[in-house]
């Protein structure tokens, strides 16, 4: 029994404690974490270095700016996204199709009145979606034109790719597919599907939903194993580039594929979650081991 228990605490799998102590606290300097948490700073830095990021429309730092900036939104044809600059896990992010003089049309759900929109922005500004900052800023950026069929056809929303970069090297990769259950979002804890992607072959090796293994997409029934991720090499190159801009030794880079622009980095994460291990059926420790061996082999 004890033997069995200990065989499970094998060094290949990282828990929160180990991730925080041996990865985040060892490789990620606080100032770099702070930069990664601030989407505005991150975006500016990435964009200067030539990493493709969504185009900014406006940044709101004070309540009084809301109405002035709203006039800017009125002319937009392709929609926009409103995000808290220091939010996490996609909290407080809303996609809008259009801004009209008296109402705002979100991508999902009923139109918002202008008052509702102003209140929503005010809530972000007063720090409701941040963890330990008393105030926040709001980013308004262009809604990218995501390629829904990038990884698997027939998804209820755009998929994204999460790449873990360890000391500049892509280590593990997971594609996140929205489901009807996740309300079109690619969040795993909301019920999205996670695909483990082999960085060597560029193909999916395993799929999970709600931390359980699955073989087919729950909505479309599309097979999920052995799927090829188109343009993975490009994504890996972009992820590695991010690591040179944001000095994090351990980071997660989230990439969406725009139909016109190709891969676009939407977020950089200083404490990427551990579910990627389940999606790949590979512990972070094991992945690090393999990477080291590959490196050894090349030398």
């Amino acid at each position, binding site marked *: 029994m004890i033997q069995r228990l200990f065989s499970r605490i*094998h060094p290949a799998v990282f*828990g929160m*404690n180990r991730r925080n*102590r041996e990865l985040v606290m060892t490789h990620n300097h606080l100032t770099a974490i702070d930069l990664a948490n601030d989407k505005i700073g991150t975006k500016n830095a990435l964009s200067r270095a030539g990493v493709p990021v969504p185009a900014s429309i406006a940044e709101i730092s004070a309540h009084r700016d809301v109405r002035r900036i709203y006039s800017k939104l009125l002319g937009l044809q392709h929609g926009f996204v409103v995000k808290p600059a220091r939010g996490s896990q996609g909290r407080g992010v809303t996609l809008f199709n259009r801004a009209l003089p008296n109402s705002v049309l979100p991508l999902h759900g009923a139109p918002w009145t202008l008052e509702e929109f102003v209140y929503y922005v005010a*809530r972000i500004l*007063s720090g409701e979606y941040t963890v330990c900052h008393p105030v926040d800023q709001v980013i308004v950026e262009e809604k990218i034109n995501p390629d829904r069929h990038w990884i698997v056809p027939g998804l209820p929303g755009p998929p994204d790719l999460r790449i873990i970069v360890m000391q500049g090297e892509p280590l593990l990769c997971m594609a996140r597919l929205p489901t009807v259950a996740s309300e079109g979002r690619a969040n795993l804890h909301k019920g999205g599907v996670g695909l483990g992607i082999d960085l060597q072959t560029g193909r999916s090796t395993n799929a999970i939903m709600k931390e359980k293994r699955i073989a087919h997409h729950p909505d479309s029934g599309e097979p999920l194993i052995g799927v090829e991720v188109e343009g993975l090499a490009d994504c890996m190159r972009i992820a590695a580039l991010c690591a040179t801009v944001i000095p994090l030794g351990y980071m997660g880079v989230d990439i969406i594929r725009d139909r016109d622009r190709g891969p676009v980095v939407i977020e950089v994460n200083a404490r990427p979650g551990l579910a990627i291990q389940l999606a790949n059926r590979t512990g972070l420790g*094991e992945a690090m081991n393999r990477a080291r061996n590959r490196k050894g082999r090349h030398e």
Partner: protein
Amino acid sequence: MAVSDSPPIRVALFGRKEIGIALAICALTALLIGYKVFALGYSMASVQQEDGYFVALQMDVVGNGRSCELKVTLPVSSDRQVIKHEKQVAESFRYTISPGRIGRWYNQAFSGKATLTYSCLAQTEAKRYPLPEGADIPTTYSLRLQSDLGAEERTQSTDPAIVAKAMELAPPGTQLKATLERIFNFCQRDLRYLEIKGPTDAVTALKLGEASCNGKVRLMVAMLRAKGIPARMANGLILERSRKRTTHAWVEAWVGDSWVPFCPTNDYFARIPETYLELAKGDVAVITRSRNIGFDWKWTVAHQLTTREKAVVANVDHPLNILRVWTTLKDYHVSLDLIMVILMIPIGATVVSFARNVVGVVPYGTFMPTLVAVSFRDTGFLFGAIMFTTVMVVAVSVNYLLMKLRLLHIPRLTIIITVVVLSILGVSVVCIKAGLTSGAAVSLFPMAILSLTSERFTQTMIMDGAKEAVNRLMITFMVAGACFVAIDWTALQMVVVAFPEILLINVAINLVIGSWTGLRLLELRRFRDLPPETATP
């Protein structure tokens, strides 16, 4: 193809440095405690179980140079009351206790002011007395009961009106028990209760048809005596947390071969409640004094300091205990209990640290469960839980409504705090009205904590759904429960109070927890299906 021989990943579940520091801290703490115990002979006071009421009589006397005497009928231990730990303060007076348990303070030439006190611990019990069925009123009694059969100045048992009333209630031939019942019922029910200061005699009470406790008692005693039943007045104190000048009177009647108590004021027939402390028998004043002095007095009744508090004081009041500085601050009234609670908070925090980093549950807020647990100390776990749940329901509903009103964050929180305070007071009032006295203990209930918890709850509900919000609330509650067990654990409290340096061990424990990189218990489950590490090629 060259196979690299890179070493497998190091399995170190704990940081070596941290364990080293932790061990050093433990050794230091053991040394400190060991030195105090073995070299300096410090010993720990433990909690002894002793329940009861602390009764104190305080008498303020102003003299004018003449002789001064005060006499108090002191309580006596009996089959239903135990008097312990008697103490008195005599100042310049001479204090003696007569064989009849009269405490006497005497000063033959007293001038100036003095405060004389008597105090004791009274442990009382409720008692019921069986009355013989079918027995007639005896016709003869032993000599020593004769004085309890005759008339007295204020107990006019031979007054025609009283005799006539007694005969009307219990005509000749009525049995003993029925006589007692009828006379008791008359004095208890038909004679109205009226708060009157000073003594009322039996005849006046009968004439007025209303009386305070001593009038009721004198009338009942007089009528029983008129019926040939030995009876007397009993004086005592009602033991409830109070400060007062008045004593309470009830009746004792000789039934069979013992005195049986009856209280026509509070309707105790042949029984005495736990809260009655007997002081004097007969129609006598409990306190008598010289006429020529300035005099004021008060009785103070309090639940005996809980034994826990006493042990805390005993532990703290030692030259080797650093906490003793607080006891030297006489004028500041720093509660040692509060200091003890403060000392227990880090231990409650360790419970949270264990729950989060070893078990892997995530309650609301960082140390919210600890603070919630601290508040449960005042209210008791059950009442605290009722309070917690009710307030959460109210606060979350209000928060939800305020979100609809599009109120901004801080003003919204302020409204929630207000609502939380009001609902805490509301719950408290309802509980007190319903007789749950623990509902009164709301003083320290951390309103800000509850408000923040309700805010987090509402946020979680909106962002992750009600199920997740309730789940996390349950987790918060469970961790708070575990914290409560830890901080309310008497033995641990005593150790912490006796050896505050033990908190260094708390540091050591957290050095260990903080450097532990193994999978949390819930992660063991989460990752149970992952294949073990494949052999490196």
